[in-house]
């Protein structure tokens, strides 16, 4: 039997606010344990939450970014469960009336088409603290630095059928939120965490099968693997005539398997009810319009502009818009060099390669987009051959600046003076009469080879500085 995989995603995004969602403590990652805490974060008696409106703004930015409806009135609710890293014994979340309602997020695929994902809702909530199991022998420590960090939980409809779609969505979501400055999207620090709801059904069936939830997987690679492993497990169960149990499972990358969480780790009834300590969030149209007006150009708009106005391929436009820093770098190069195609080739070629080699991202690089643009301009005005340009790029990457002074210092100027080249060519013709004779009687293929021979010799004679196009043209004339 053929099975169809059906998946829906819940992504937790840590919002890039300076302080926590209900307290003034810092949200900075990596601080000494329990130093970013105040009486509220520790849930001391009598403390009360006060909403950080920066989190509300970021949630609205996200909603507008995916074209979703913004809840004019949304509310906070208490989600009740006991856990040592949840100091109040409840999490403040939005259950009944989320701030972001339905929207459709068009996820770009490599072939230039888009895959529409229905967003069901996105709601604000506070993060829990962390249990630390290895700090104190025979005890579990609690670090409340993270407790109260604002999260936006983005919930999709079960619209995914392949893990490729899931990864494409997550990458596009990552691009969107980093573009918008909503979240740093840092998966290894937990700024973007993904739960996958997954079920199988016979191909052609419309009813959903029983799903399991894979929790908190924190890299694209693991997500892909977890989906594969879990769908295989469900398929084996179903084909053996067993049923899938609805449960929460953890992916163990070391053992390459998923396993059910202990029932103790899963609360069944969260007893949600409106939090009486917080007023409803009321958002008026003017606020929404102000935020809309301040939004940067989104990836989807950029892609369209790159293909339609700049003449780039869908593939390149897609790659260039994955990260805001890359797109912004590209745009400066393209605009300054007035050669968008060449700009795209450099950014996706040499620049990306150099970044990958050092394992850093564009936002960490010190390379100047203006330098790269000048480099392209020097190719376009025939000052540099493409080989020379690579030498200059290497120098730029090593931290040198100013393309023209690098060219001067390295003596890299290309010889584009036809008089000077003619002297070289004439000398070659008289020194290589045999090859000249061969050329005159050869067929087209053979001629090409021989031109190559002469170009090589001329390059050698010019110490690599001859303009290859001009050389080619002059040789053809002289030999013809």
């Amino acid at each position, binding site marked *: 039997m053929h099975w169809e995989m059906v998946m829906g995603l819940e992504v937790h995004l840590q919002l890039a606010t300076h302080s926590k969602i209900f307290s003034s403590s810092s949200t900075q990652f990596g601080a000494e344990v329990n130093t970013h805490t105040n009486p509220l974060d520790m849930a001391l*008696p009598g403390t009360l939450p006060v909403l950080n409106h920066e989190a509300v703004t970021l949630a609205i930015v996200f909603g507008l970014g995916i074209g979703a409806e913004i809840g004019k009135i949304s509310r906070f609710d208490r989600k009740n469960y006991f856990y040592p890293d949840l*100091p109040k014994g409840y999490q403040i979340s939005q259950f009944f009336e989320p701030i972001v309602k339905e929207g459709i997020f068009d996820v770009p695929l490599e072939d230039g088409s888009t895959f529409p994902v229905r967003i069901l809702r996105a709601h604000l909530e506070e993060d829990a603290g962390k249990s630390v199991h290895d700090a104190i022998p025979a005890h579990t420590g609690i670090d409340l630095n993270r407790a109260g960090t604002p999260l936006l939980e983005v919930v999709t409809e079960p619209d995914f059928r392949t893990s490729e779609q899931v990864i494409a969505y997550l990458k596009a979501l990552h691009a969107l939120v980093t573009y918008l400055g909503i979240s740093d999207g840092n998966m290894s620090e937990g700024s973007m965490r993904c739960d996958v709801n997954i079920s199988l059904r016979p191909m052609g069936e419309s009813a959903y099968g029983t799903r399991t939830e894979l929790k908190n997987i924190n890299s694209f690679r693991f997500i892909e693997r977890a989906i594969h492993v879990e769908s295989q497990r469900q398929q084996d169960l179903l084909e053996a005539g067993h049923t899938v149990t609805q449960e929460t499972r953890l992916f163990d990358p070391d053992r390459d398997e998923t396993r059910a969480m202990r029932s103790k780790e899963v609360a069944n009834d969260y007893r949600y009810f409106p939090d009486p300590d917080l007023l409803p969030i009321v958002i008026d149209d003017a606020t929404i319009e102000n935020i809309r007006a301040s939004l940067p150009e989104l990836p989807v708009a950029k892609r369209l502009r790159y293909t339609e106005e700049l003449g780039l391929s869908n593939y390149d436009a897609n790659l260039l818009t994955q990260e805001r820093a890359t797109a912004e770098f590209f745009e400066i190069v393209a605009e300054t060099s007035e050669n968008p195609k060449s700009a795209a080739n450099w950014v996706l070629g040499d620049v990306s390669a150099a970044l990958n080699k050092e394992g850093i991202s564009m936002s960490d690089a010190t390379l100047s987009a203006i330098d790269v643009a000048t480099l392209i301009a020097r190719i376009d005005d025939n000052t540099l051959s493409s080989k020379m340009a690579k030498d200059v790029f290497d120098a730029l990457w090593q931290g040198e600046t100013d393309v023209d002074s690098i060219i001067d210092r390295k003596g890299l100027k290309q010889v584009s003076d036809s008089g000077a080249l003619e002297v070289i060519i004439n000398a070659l013709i008289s020194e290589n009469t045999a090859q000249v004779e061969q050329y005159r009687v050869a067929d087209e293929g053979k001629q090409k080879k021989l031109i190559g021979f002469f170009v090589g010799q001329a390059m050698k004679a010019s110490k690599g500085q001859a303009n290859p196009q001009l050389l080619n043209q002059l040789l053809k004339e002289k030999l013809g």
Partner: protein
Amino acid sequence: MPIAFESIATLSQALKNGEVSSRQLVEQAVARIDSLNPQLNAVVCLEAEQALANADQADARRAKGEHSPLLGIPMLHKDIFCTQGMRTTCASKMLADFVPPYDATVVQKLKDAGMINLGKCNMDEFAMGSSNETSVFGACKNPWDVTRVPGGSSGGSAVAVASGMVPFATGTDTGGSIRQPAALCGITGLKPTYGRVSRYGMIAFASSMDQAGPMAHSAQDCALVLNAMAGHDPLDSTCDNTPVPNYHQTLDHPIAGLRIGVPKEFFSSHLNTEVATAIDAAICELERAGATVKEVSLPSTDLAVSTYYVIAPAEASANLSRYDGVRYGYRCEAPSDLQDLYFRSRTEGFGAEVKRRILVGTFTLSAASYDQYFMKAQQVRRLITQEYDSVLNEVDVIAGPAAPNTAFALNDTSKSITDMYMEDVFTIGANLAGLPAISLPAGLVNGLPVGLQLIGQRFGEAQLLNVAHQFQSRTDWHTRRPTLEAVR
């Protein structure tokens, strides 16, 4: 001068005139607490040395010419308010050793106004009770008859004022916890509009109804203190930023033409007939002062208690989840695992009434009963609010009894839990609707005080205090003192 039973206004004037020092006031208050407390058990924490040091500072400020009305006046806080460096227990074993690192906003504001806090008052555990018998410190006794309860949950505060220990104490009122003990102890207690006084640092019971207020001998004293307690607080999102009027300034306004509504449902079979007679007489007194009285109807009064006992425990069940033995508060001996830590810490740390309400609240919020209980109760709450609002469109003030009976006997085993809950039948409506309400002494029945309750419009504290003050200008019930030998 002997200060017991003197009003804040009188003491303030004496301080201003140099007839007495704040140190002397504090010394006398401490001496009186020392002598009366073994019998009354109203005060559960006394920090005399710190209070005397603060009194000296207040005297120094007076000497420099500062004369704000509360400067140097001794007082006590209900043990539900967090006091920096001073143990705050909520009368629970759970918080027996809890010393907060911060002051509640109310504590801070009264400190800023120059009041001298002597310590903390007894109360029902986590403010859950109407008799002050659920306290881990044991029952507090009514100074009018020490075999009777003072009411609750702010029983210790009421007794501290009624027995002349201090002229003022803070209370909190979630379902009547200021007004009912004020009534049973013969003092004046005001529950402000929900959101008038900050809840920050006030240990939560039912967050949508909890409200702090003053308990004193007279409406005038309540007005003086409310001036300092009320006002917006950025630390409490539900605290309103409606401007705070000077409550003292409008006390003397004549009440001729005031429209008073008397709900017929308040004079039902729940009400003791002698209490009813006293309340009738008090309302007649207001009529003689020029008010017009008419009968009104609050048809859902009978639903108020059950509505309250769904909503309040639901909120409490979540509010009290933080007492889990993990970070602070009571932790059981040698827990075997996490489950055991939770289970035994909470089983051993909470008293029976608190556990009962946590269980009820957990039940009413559970998925299977949410619609049937919690949601239904929210609907009835809206209905009750509408009924109050519509009556308050026709009249200025609603008048009636604060409690159905006078003080009842301690350890009265004939009283069932639901009988106890019915003590709040007349007070709960104002909490559900978020309205201000005051209880003031309005008579004695068999030697025990009766409280007249006035319920006002949202943020109508000034009017309530004005009406109460006018009543107190014409009557002397608020100057009657307990007959207890030691107290007199």
